[in-house]
């Protein structure tokens, strides 16, 4: 299994440009998440999905959009890039939710470093 893969690894955008960050998992996980990590700030949840066709906002959704047409893919869209969106973006997935053994373990991708100038 490749786990969680993210593309691209690094991207420079100009203000106002748009792009899609790709995230794919091959573990058949229902839950998928997008986070941004800013220096000294920890991770902030942007959007999450509990299954194909279902998405919901996290803490910092403004300026982003997502879709979940398949179990495997969870792309993150930036429509009008702004300098405030300069960050490292992580995608994660987990199998199930609940208190049973084996649940609630998120697997993270390697991240996409985005610079908006």
């Amino acid at each position: 299994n490749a786990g969680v893969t993210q593309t691209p690894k690094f991207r420079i955008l100009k203000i106002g440009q748009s792009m899609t960050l790709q995230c794919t998992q091959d573990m058949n996980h229902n839950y998928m998440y997008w986070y941004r990590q800013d220096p000294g700030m920890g991770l902030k949840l942007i959007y999450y999905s509990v299954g194909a066709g279902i998405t919901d906002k996290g803490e910092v959704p403004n300026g982003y959009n997502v879709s979940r047409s398949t179990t495997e893919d969870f792309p993150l869209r930036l429509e009008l890039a702004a300098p405030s969106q300069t960050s490292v973006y992580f995608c994660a997935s987990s199998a199930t939710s609940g208190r049973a053994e084996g649940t609630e373990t998120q697997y993270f991708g390697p991240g996409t470093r985005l610079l908006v100038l």
Partner: protein
Amino acid sequence: AQSVTQLDSQVPVFEEAPVELRCNYSSSVSVYLFWYVQYPNQGLQLLLKYLSGSTLVKSINGFEAEFNKSQTSFHLRKPSVHISDTAEYFCAVKDFNKFYFGSGTKLNVKP
């Protein structure tokens, strides 16, 4: 919304010394608690988690954390650290379907 506080942004410690990384969160209403570790230029990896049951949870590499409901804390400890433990550690809380992370603690183990 939850808030997660990691008061120590950096913790320097000598090899084989004990260490405690502190984590407090804002509400104890039926939350799940996690510690993640991040090595340079990598994604996060789960270190340990508390979902229910015993309040003391342990990882395979010697770390442990104790859920304290009355103090809304989930501090991470290791009795003897190694150079290889040098990394950034994040505490996280799951409240319903959303995860909230602390700002991280950089553990720097010196020889």
